[in-house]
């Protein structure tokens, strides 16, 4: 049957992620099967060879993470996708990408943990691992979609941010969004904004791979394009070679933290719903934001003035946006599928000036609108 609009699809979140990656210019995917992320690998195994890209199933999640870093250094936009246990395994190499400033996208389709946990059930319990999963201090960007279309858009955004800031970007989706089939209309490819890494404009002998530039983001040369330089996970100076000079070490480490923090206004994306004249603010993200939106609607219908702040960026944390809205309300409700990982951040963002009510669940079941409504009503 002929579709009236060729850009409209019935699509699952994982498929949207794969298609978003291709639209963003991803031409290399390395993965390892793990529920509930596997469809991303399956779709890309089919699609990438059709568009001149490469798909490879590696021997484990660690190898997949290493391979995407290698591919990105070779100049190809690269992504891997995984879930809880695999996300844990990838952490060391995520730290490498942060340290060596190599753009890559890592998708974590969250499932119940700890350990093998609940492979086929939803969770949002990797939010803190996304921020602090590696050893050492570095900035990180993590995005969180709550619809299939958002999964598509935020996958593209993840690539753009990783290329712009020379950093790994994490797409923190979850089992519900990943396996949810929704009708979506994809944008015309020509309307999609694509950002590519800034390459050096100086001749190779003048190239300083980790130069302290005004932007804090030095241009990146791809391997094999005439700029021979050294890439290491060791603490290094601006030339990329290992150093033990405390001043040089600090200069570089502060820069890889600052390069995210100083652009936080550009990176942070939130969405407000019914936040005018409100008494209670619900802050939610991912699958739980869907229940939260319904709960706010129900509350408004029942004369309770509730609003929703949906977080599409989790790291850097939208503390400024939260603090501003918090001034308008007497209470905040944070529903999430963990024991309060983001609620804790909200308390910090609001200096504990008002009660932050937690609605938590860690048994693999989603939080219902009614449960959030109860918390709103109090």
């Amino acid at each position, binding site marked *: 049957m002929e579709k009236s609009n060729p850009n409209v699809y019935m699509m699952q979140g994982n498929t949207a992620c794969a298609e978003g990656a291709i639209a963003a210019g991803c031409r290399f995917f390395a993965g390892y099967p793990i529920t509930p992320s596997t469809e991303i690998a399956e779709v890309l195994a089919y699609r990438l*060879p059709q568009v001149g890209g490469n798909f490879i199933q590696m021997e484990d999640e660690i*190898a997949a993470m290493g391979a995407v870093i290698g*591919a990105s250094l*070779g*100049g190809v936009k690269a992504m891997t996708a995984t879930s809880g246990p695999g996300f844990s395994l990838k952490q060391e*190499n995520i730290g490498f990408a942060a340290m060596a400033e190599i753009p890559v996208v890592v998708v974590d389709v969250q499932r119940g943990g700890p350990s093998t946990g609940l492979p086929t059930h939803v969770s949002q319990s990797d939010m803190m691992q996304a921020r602090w999963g590696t050893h050492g201090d570095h900035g990180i960007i993590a995005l969180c979609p709550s619809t299939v279309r958002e999964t598509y858009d935020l996958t593209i955004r993840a690539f753009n941010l990783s290329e712009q800031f020379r950093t790994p970007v994490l797409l923190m989706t979850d089992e519900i969004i990943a396996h949810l089939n929704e009708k979506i209309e994809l944008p015309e490819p020509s309307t999609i904004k694509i950002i590519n890494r800034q390459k050096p404009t100086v001749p190779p002998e003048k190239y300083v791979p980790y130069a302290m530039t005004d932007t804090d983001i030095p241009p990146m040369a791809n391997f094999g*394009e005439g700029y021979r330089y050294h890439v290491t996970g060791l603490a290094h100076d601006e030339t990329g*070679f290992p150093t033990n000079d405390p001043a040089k070490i600090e200069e570089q480490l502060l820069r890889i933290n600052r390069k995210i923090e100083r652009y936080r206004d550009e990176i942070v994306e939130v969405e407000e719903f019914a936040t005018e004249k409100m008494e209670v603010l619900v802050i939610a993200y991912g699958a739980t934001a869907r229940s939260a939106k319904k709960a706010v609607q129900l509350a408004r219908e029942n004369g309770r003035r509730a609003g929703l702040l949906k977080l599409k960026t989790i790291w850097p944390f939208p503390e400024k946006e939260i603090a501003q809205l918090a001034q308008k309300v007497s209470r905040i409700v944070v529903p999430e599928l963990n024991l309060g990982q983001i609620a804790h951040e909200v308390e910090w963002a609001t200096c504990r000036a008002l009660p932050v009510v937690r609605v938590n669940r860690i048994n693999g079941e989603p939080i219902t609108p009614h449960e959030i409504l109860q918390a709103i009503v109090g």
Partner: protein
Amino acid sequence: MDYLYYLRQSKMPHIWCDGCGHGIVLKSLLRVIDKLGWDKNDVAVVSGIGCSSRTPGYVDFNTLHTTHGRALAFATGLKIAKPQLHVIVVTGDGDAVAIGGNHFIHAARRNIDISVIIYNNYIYGMTGGQVSPTTPTMKKATTTPFGNPDAPFDISRLAAAAGAAYVARTTVYHYARMDLYIEQALTKKGFSVVEVLSPCPTSYGKLNKLGNGVDMLMYQKENTVSLEKAAQLTPEELENKIVVGVFVDKEQADYQEHYQKVVQKSHNV
């Protein structure tokens, strides 16, 4: 041959101890690259963690010093992204077949067009002399003070069993042989491995009373037997002998050749 052309001279002298064989391996690698006439821009040297893995820092190529054991994973992505690069992995026994053992056998199985030079010194040198997966049984290391109860891996036979297109073993003393094997490996389509036995007088030699670098090289000189000769010797006669030679040298389609077929099929759907 001008080694200096290939060295990052400001990083020299290198960190390897006096009598360590690693520098001899590196020189052989550079001689071969020089002989092949490869452009420095077209060569990528990738390593993991350990003494041998410090190699990339000293050579003027595209160089990548990755995480412990993962050099082959990074190299796989790099080779696929930039097939025109000659991707050479330099690694040690611990890096390649302990923490990186899984990547090693799978890269061999996949037959991806990467060459691996393994500097096998039977020990973890960088961390001060701990037992490695190639430390012979009952030999000492700082973590086996009363002798190693484990059996060692035979890296070359492991690579051969896993499907590598080219596998050879030699010692640093037999440098001409090393040049030949490394050249054959670098020009081989598919996954190629050269295992080079390299003395570690500082840790392995000292703990096992094997003398200094000179003594350990002398041992290599006097106790090496070829694969052909080894086939005629009894296990007792082969005890403490180093068996060298070409274990595998075969022509077979590599990963990229197979992937091209995948690409063609993907267009036919």
